[in-house]
């Protein structure tokens, strides 16, 4: 009887050990897959953040602060990739998560900077245009007035001249 119980217990332990081993492998693979997809997401997030930064720059915004933060995010992505390669899934996922956080904040700041820069550019456009148009109009009117005054003065001066009589000494 004892022998039988021991045999059954042994089999049970073996089955449990096998199940444990198998499930450990499954969880490990899942952990690695999760970290790998986190690193992929971080890569995409960085690219999107850079695109938004570039658009803000083209709109005329000062993006030096965003570039600094993008460099920080790039460093974290590199660290996540190295951790993933070394099999450290939790660190890889953690670094990738930090990278995504920075990249997303850069993206939203870049969008806000772009909107503000576009607004400012529009104001500058209308100011410059108004200055040129009004300036030219005023100048032309002043020039015409000055010319008329000058012309009248010139004609008057010419008409008011007395003819000089030349005497022939001989």
């Amino acid at each position, binding site marked *: 009887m004892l022998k039988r119980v021991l045999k059954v217990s042994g089999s049970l332990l073996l089955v449990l050990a096998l199940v444990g081993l198998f499930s450990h492998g499954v969880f490990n693979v899942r952990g690695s897959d999760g970290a790998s997809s986190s690193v992929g997401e971080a890569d995409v997030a960085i690219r999107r953040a850079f695109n938004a*930064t570039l658009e803000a*720059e083209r709109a005329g915004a000062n993006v030096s602060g965003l*570039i600094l933060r993008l460099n920080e995010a790039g*460093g974290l992505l590199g660290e996540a990739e190295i951790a993933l390669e070394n099999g450290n899934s939790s660190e890889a996922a953690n670094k990738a998560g930090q990278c995504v956080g920075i990249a997303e904040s850069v993206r939203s700041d870049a969008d806000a900077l772009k909107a503000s820069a576009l607004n400012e550019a529009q104001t500058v456009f209308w100011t410059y245009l108004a*200055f*040129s148009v009004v*300036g030219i109009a005023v100048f032309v009117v002043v020039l015409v007035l000055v010319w008329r005054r000058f*012309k009248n003065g*010139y004609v008057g001066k010419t008409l008011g001249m007395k003819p000089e009589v030349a005497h022939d000494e001989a």
Partner: protein
Amino acid sequence: MKLEDYKVVFVAVGLICILLLAVPALSLAVHFPEGEKFSELWVLGSGHMAGDYPFNVNENGSYLVYLGVENHLSSSAYYEVILKFRNESEPLPNETAGVSSSSPPLYVYRVFLQDGQSWEQPLNFSFFQVSAAQNQSVVGGLTVNGVTLSVDKHAVWDDGGSGYFYELLMELWIYNVTSDASQFHNRFVGLWLNVTAA
């Protein structure tokens, strides 16, 4: 001077002044041509000069060079400096076709630079598991900035240079917004190394 001559002077002065007043509005529409657009990639020796590069290296040593990138593309750029390790038989990047080396990337620096900005970082490296036998050497691994990388690269004895030669290759890649992918930027620098066991 006759009245007609004064008229010419008035018209000339008027046109010049109108042109000056139109400058702010014209500046919004007229864009002057930009200069040449390019990117720079360089590697400097441990003294921060274009010299004193490591050449005869062994398993026990630790070596330092400086890697730099400068942006002259008239806009911000997202660069990747990709470190590769090759032997003499593996192909170099093809500059004519704009194709990178087929060696696998070992280490990547990600760099974001505004126009006119430059970046420089130290590159510390050392080798491990180096062995040589029967005119063939093997480098098992490489440590770059404290990160251990497995390379398992073979080289045959070079009679001309009397050594086992490997090249530490640094390629410049750039992110292309249109294709949403990084692409080889057709710039690379390499360090030839005669790697020996301790």
